[in-house]
């Protein structure tokens, strides 16, 4: 499953990021492999989305979220 498919207020664990530049950027912003990620809010026009990991809190476009493989928490 990829991050863009996760519904609002749900969490998952980041497995892999399939875009090198995006990966380096996200790691430095506190979204690490094996770390938890939560969909905090989806923008009124369905894109972009706000995601959190711990107290790290960023916005990201769905096209980038598609490149993030996750294991959803049930």
């Amino acid at each position, binding site marked *: 499953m990829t991050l863009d498919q996760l519904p609002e207020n749900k969490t998952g664990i980041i497995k892999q*990021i399939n875009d*090198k*530049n*995006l*990966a*380096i*950027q*996200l*790691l*430095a*912003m*506190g979204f*690490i*492999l094996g770390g938890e990620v939560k969909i*905090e*809010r989806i*923008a*009124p*026009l*369905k*894109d*972009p989305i*706000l995601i959190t990991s*711990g*107290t*790290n*809190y*960023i*916005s*990201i*476009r769905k*096209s*980038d979220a598609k490149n993030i493989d996750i294991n959803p928490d049930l």
Partner: protein
Amino acid sequence: MPTISSKNKPKNIVLIGNPNTGKSTLFNSLTGLNQKIGNFPGVTVDKKTGSFNYKGTKINVVDLPGTYSLAPNSEDERVAKNYIENTNKDDLIIVVVDATNLKRNLLLFSQIIDLDKQVLLVLNMMDLLQKNKQEINFDKLSKSLNCPIIPINAILNKGINQLKEAVYNYKENKNSFLINNSSKTIDETMLRINKINKIVDDVFTENGKNKSYLLTKKIDNIVTHKVYGYLIFFGILLFIFQAIFSWASYPMDLIDNGFSLLCDYVSTLLPEGIANDLIVNGILAGLGGIVIFVPQIAILFAFITILEDTGYMSRVSFLMDRILRQFGLNGKSVIPLLSSTACAIPAIMGARTIANYKERLITIMVAPLISCSARIPVYTILIALIVSEDESYGIFNLQGLLVMGLYLLGFVTALLSAWVMKLIIKSKEKSTFTLEMPVYRAPRWKNVGFEILSKVKVFLFDAGKIIIAISIILWVLSSYAPGNKFEEINEKYSNSSLDKSETNVLIASDKLEASYAGIIGKTIEPAIEPLGFDWKIGISLVTSFAAREVFVGTMATLYSVGDADNTLSIREKMMAATNHKTGEKIYTKATTFSLLIFYVFAMQCMATLAIVYRETNSIKWPVIQVVYMGALAYLSSLLVYSIFS
């Protein structure tokens, strides 16, 4: 007792850290007013430098743009990386980190340590740490990282002296963080992060919920709401424009009156003659024309700084990204587009945070279409010619409505032009919108003050130089004529039967027409006649190319040549102006609207063009900008003039 001695060699320190760590606040605390903003060689990212003295040693400080890591993603971050890599061996790097988010912030620290640099770690936001009931074991952290640590609170000015002392006493220290350097960046970064997490888990204790973070999410539920979010944003915009036009009018009236008193005083002080005329009608008239904008510019920059400082601007970017993307722009374009209402120059420089080249370029290309503060006086004076102050439409003041309409026109045209450029400019580069949502906090008033001060300074001195130079050139051009034309005019009226003051007015206007400025205006008159403009407007269009605000100064200089006693305001003089051919009033509805539209669209700012040239590193883009905006201005004015006349 410390003594001031010259044998102490100056030290250099460099501030670096993640965005939103309070680095700029620390920089302001360290250097006070002893700072200046320059540019890094080759790029136009602000380079803030300053200095302070401690125990007789001068310490130079450089503040780098915020960056998350040494793997750069934008122009800003590239600058920080290159600067750090090229620092001297004995330069001290101060890594500023948010004490409440050590795990993320220490990645940058670890990368700098491994560049074999001298590093001092500063933990900022200690007040938030206490508020969030978090604790850090400093001694243990310092030992694990093998680096001195200074906890500070930059906003409350706490720990600043300890930091200065630590800089002063810094002993060289051999250090490294990660010995096993993997060849793959992602793997290496993960190794670093894992090591950092282990260290931090050992020294960091949490005794409750992180309150500021929870509050931030509550605020975001409202601020990014699908209805309230947009309502709040437009409400804030409305409030800002209201403030710019109503609050600023009081100090502006004061400045206006002050300048006319000063002009009167100076003209009585100096003996009549060329010097008096040059100073009063050339320099002071031009100077008054710029100082009067200071209140509006200060208010506008205050609001923009506050919106950014509180963290609200990131949310607006989030709300607007999807919409702006349709037009080839980015959510991050919101900040440049909004700051364009103040001035296109900082706006265009602000576009550097947009990582995608095409989106950044389009933002730069359309930003000058948004009405900037330099257009305010042009709009104000022209609108006053066609609508009186107390006319209203319903509850709205008609003048205010018209100004609002002109702003909207500029904004809509900017979006449409962006959309056209999106179709024309080709790019395969991926577009992203990865932006941190910082925790909300009260604006740091000191930062707001510094920001206003530095922006007003740039405006007064950089723009002021151009305006004064133009005022003087214009005065010379309008006070002299080729050959002995002026003598001929004097002779022509020497036997006039009219009384003396009427004769003087006729002499002055004939002289202006014969002067060099008159010749220039007459030369371009055929080209602008279809727009309803005469040769005097022609002169101001030429001088406005230096900067739009010159329009008012030019009008003042051109029309005061005929009014030796300085009794009438510029508005009254323009109202009374008549066409030299037909004798009809010049500022009719058609001409005034046409001129207004021309100023909405035309690219009349040399300083902006210079910035566009530097930012895009090519002469192509500023040239295209002049041509497309000029064509837009000419055609729209032509259309408007033919509709109204």
